[in-house]
C-alpha cells in the first residue's frame, strides 16, 4: 500500500515540474487538474486503508471533496476566468524553462538537505514523502514568482495548498476533520475572490499582467 503512496508522492512532485514547464495557461490548469486527481487518488487509497483498519470515513469524505472542488470545480472556474479575460502578454515568465526546472531541482535538493536529517522526520518512507511535498510547496511559491499572469499566480497558490495538504496527509494521516473542511471552504472562497479580483484587474489595467501592478512603490 505504502509503495503506491510513495509512487504517488513522486508523481505529484513530477507534476509540479511539468507545471513549471508548461507555457500556456490552459496547460497550467490541466496539469493542476491532474495533480489534484493524483492527490485525490492518494487520499482515496489512504481512506480505504483507514476505513479497513479503523473504520473511519473522514479521508474518504476528504477525497470526495477534493474531487469535487480541486478536480472539477476550481479548474472549471479558472477556465472560465481565463476565457473571459484577454491577454496581451506574450512571454509570461521571467526566466526561461530550463533554468526554472534546474531551480526546481535545486529546491528539492535543498529541502532534502535541510529537512531529511532532522530526527523525527527521517523515519524511512515518511522522510521521502515529506521532502517531496515540502519541495512541492516551495516549487509552488517559485512558480508564483516566475509567472507574470494572474491565473499563473492563482495556480501557484493552489499548488502550495496542494503541497500542504499532501504533507498533512502523508505525515499525519490528515488534519482533524473539521480543520480539513475549514481549509477547503477557505480555499474555495479564496479562489472565488481571486477570480473576481482577476476580472477587476483586467477591467482596470486592460490586462492581467501582474507585472503591470507597480504604482504603489516606496
Amino acid at each position, binding site marked *: 500500500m505504502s509503495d503506491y503512496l510513495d509512487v504517488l508522492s513522486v508523481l505529484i512532485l513530477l507534476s509540479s515540474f511539468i507545471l513549471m514547464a508548461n507555457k500556456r495557461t490552459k496547460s497550467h490548469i490541466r496539469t493542476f487538474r491532474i495533480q489534484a486527481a493524483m492527490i485525490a487518488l492518494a487520499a482515496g487509497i489512504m481512506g480505504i486503508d483507514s476505513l479497513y483498519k479503523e473504520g473511519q470515513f473522514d479521508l474518504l469524505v476528504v477525497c470526495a471533496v477534493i474531487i469535487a472542488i480541486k478536480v472539477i470545480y476550481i479548474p472549471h472556474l479558472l477556465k472560465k476566468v481565463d476565457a473571459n479575460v484577454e491577454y496581451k502578454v506574450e512571454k509570461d515568465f*521571467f526566466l526561461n524553462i530550463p533554468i526554472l526546472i534546474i531551480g526546481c531541482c535545486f529546491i528539492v535538493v*535543498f*529541502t532534502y*538537505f*535541510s*529537512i531529511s*536529517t*532532522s530526527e523525527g522526520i527521517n523515519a524511512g518512507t515518511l522522510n521521502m514523502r515529506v521532502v517531496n511535498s515540502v519541495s512541492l510547496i*516551495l516549487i509552488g*511559491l*517559485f512558480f*508564483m*514568482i516566475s509567472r*507574470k499572469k494572474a491565473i499563473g*499566480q492563482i495556480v501557484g497558490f493552489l499548488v502550495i495548498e496542494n503541497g500542504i495538504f499532501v504533507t498533512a496527509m502523508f505525515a499525519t494521516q490528515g488534519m482533524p476533520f473539521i480543520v480539513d473542511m475549514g481549509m477547503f471552504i477557505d480555499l474555495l472562497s479564496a479562489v472565488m475572490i481571486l477570480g473576481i479580483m482577476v476580472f477587476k484587474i483586467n477591467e482596470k489595467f486592460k490586462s492581467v499582467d*501582474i*507585472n503591470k*501592478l*507597480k*504604482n*504603489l*512603490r*516606496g
Partner: protein
Amino acid sequence: MLLTIRNMGGQGTLLFVSILLYIFAAAASLVLMKRHKICNIVSNTLCILAATAGIAASIIEIFFNQALTDIHIFQSTIPLLSIDIKMDKLSAFFVLCLSVLVVCVSLYSIGYISHYYGKRNVGLFNFMYATFILSMLFVMISGNAVFFFIAWEVMAMISYFLVVFESEQEENQRAGKLYVIMTHIGTAFLLIGFMIMYSYTKSFDMFASSAAIPPFAKNIIFIMFLIGFGTKAGVIPVHIWLPHAHPAAPSNVSALMSGIMIKTAIYGILRFVFSYLGIQNTWWGVTILVIGIVSAVLGVAYAFVEKNIKRLLAYSSIENIGIIFIGLGVAFIAQAQGNSTVCALAITAALFHSFNHTLFKGSLFLGAGSVHYATHTKNMEELGGLIKKMPVTALFFLGGALSIAAVVPFNGFISEWLTYQSLFATITPGQSVINILSILTVAVLAMAGALAAASIIKLYGISFLGLPRSDHAAKATEVPGIMNIGMGILVSLCLLAGLFPMAVLQGIDKVTLGLTGLSILGRLKGGFLLAFYPMNISGNAISPAVIVGVLAGVILTVLIVIRMIGGKYIERKYGTWDCGFEALSERMQYSATGFSKPIKIVFKALFRPTRSIKIEGDLTYHPESIEYTVSAEPIFEKYLYGPLVRAVKNFSKKIKFRIQTGSIHTYLIYIFLAVLALMLYNRLS
C-alpha cells in the same frame, strides 16, 4: 500607593505648595481661556506665588536643611515607573535660579502677553508656559532617572510647542523642527546612558552608589551623558538648534529657555556625572574643558557678527555655557587628580556663573522682548535712538549689558574672576598638557570676554543710541511699567550679586560642600565686602564694593575740583560733527554690519563671509540705490550637518524603491528567501 513622605520638612511642604500652584496656574489658564486679560493676570500671578514658594523652599534647603528632602509621590502600576521627589542642595540651587527667574519673567509676562489679547490663544500659551516651568522644576527635583527622563522629555516637547507658538513664520517652524529633532536625538543618548547604568546597578536611583558599574562602562555612560546633556546645553558642535530656537520663541519664553532651561543640562552633568558616576579619568575633564573653550570662543564670535538682537543673545548663551563648561572641566580635572580644593573652587565658579547667566541673560532677553514689543522688529539695522524713546528699558538693558560684558562691579565679572582663579590654581609645574590647556583657556577667556563686551556694545549702541534707523524705532514708546519691574529686579540682582558676592557665595559654598565635601568658605574671608581667594595666597583678592566706593569718591572729587577750576557747568547743544556736510542723517551712522566688519575680516577663515553688492543706476556718481549684504557662512550646518542629513536622505530615497519595488514577484521572492534562510539556519544550528 500615594505619597509616602520620607523626609518632608518645611521646604518639602513649600515645594509641594509651589508645584500645586503651578498646576493651578496651568488649570486656571485653561479654564479662563476665553477671557484673555483675566486669564493672563491670574495664571501669571499664580506662577509668581509658586515661584516665591519655590524660592523659600530652596533657600531653606540650602541654608538650614541637613538631610535631603525626599518625598515619594506614587508608584505607578507600570513597572519601574515611580514619581519620587528628592531635593538636595544641588537641586535646591537650580530651583532657586529657576524660581528667581520665574518671578521676574512672570511679572514681565503680565505686561508682555497683552499684545496677544484677541489675536492669539492666550489661555493655551499660559497653560504651556506654566507646564513648561513645572517640567523644568520636576527635572531639577526628580528622585529617580525614569522620572527625570519623563520630565526631561515633556520639557522638550512643551518648549517645542512654545518655540513654534508664532508658527506663521516659516523660520519659526524650521527652528522648532530643528530643535525638537536635535533634542530628541540627544535624549536618545541619555536613555542609553540611563539604561547602561540600570543594567549594572539594577536600579534607576541616581542618589544611590554607582560602585557596581565597571570603569569601561562608566566611560561609555559619560560619553552618552556628555552628548545628551551637551545637546540640551547647546555646546558646539551640537549647538545648531539654539540660535534658531531661542529667537523664535516669544521673548518671555526665550528668557526662560536661555536663562534656565539650558542650565538643566548643567544640573544633569553635575548630578549624573560628577555626583553619581564620580570622576575617574582626567580625560573626562579635558574633553569638557575643550568643548567649553570651543563653545566660548566660537559662540561669542558668531554673536558678534549677528544682526538679530535675540539671535545675538542666543549665541552669547552658547559662549556663557562654554564658560560654565570650562569651570566644570577644570573641576573634573582637579577631582580626577585628587586636588579637591581646586575642584571645589572651580565648581563654585561654574555654579556662580550659572546663577549670573540666569540673571543677566534673563534680563537681556526680557529687554529684547520689550524692544520687540515696542518696535515690532528684532533687526538692529532698523533700530536706534531707543534710549530717548524708552529710557527705563534702556537703563536696565545697560545694566544687563554691563554684567554680560564682565566688567566691575557687575556679577558677570565675579564668576569670571573665580574661573580665572581656578585656572590659575590648576597650573602647577610638571603636568604639561593640562598646563598648556589651561593657559590657552585663559587666553580664550580673555578674548571671549573682550568680544562679548564688543558684541553687547554693538547691540546696545546700534539699537539704543544714535538716531532711529526706521519708523518702527522712531515711533517706539516706553513699555508698560510691569514689564520694566520684572526686568529691573533681575538687573538690580545682577548689581547686588556683583557688589556683595559673598552673600551669594555663602549659599553656593554650601552646595559645593554638598557636592565635593569641601568648603572653601573658610578661606573666603572678609564678610560681605571682600572675596578672598581660597588658595592660602596672600593678596589674591577683590573688593568690588570698595572699588565702586573709590570710583564714586573719585568722581565726586573730580566734580568738585573741576567746579573749582572751571566754574559752573555750561552746556551748548549742537549738531554732531559732520565735516560741514550739514545734513547728517540716520543713514550715515555706523551700521551693525559695519561695526562687526573688522573682526569679520580678521577672522575670515572662520566666518567665510559672503558679500553681495546690488547697485542700481549710475555707479560712478549718482547710484539710485546701493544694497550691500554680507552674511557669515554657518560652518557646522554646511560642513557637518548638511552632508550628514543629505546622505541619510539620499540613502533612504534610493533604498526605498529598491525594497518596495511595487512588483509582487519581488515580494514573493522575499518570502521565498526568508523560508530558505530559516530552514538553512535551522539545519545549521
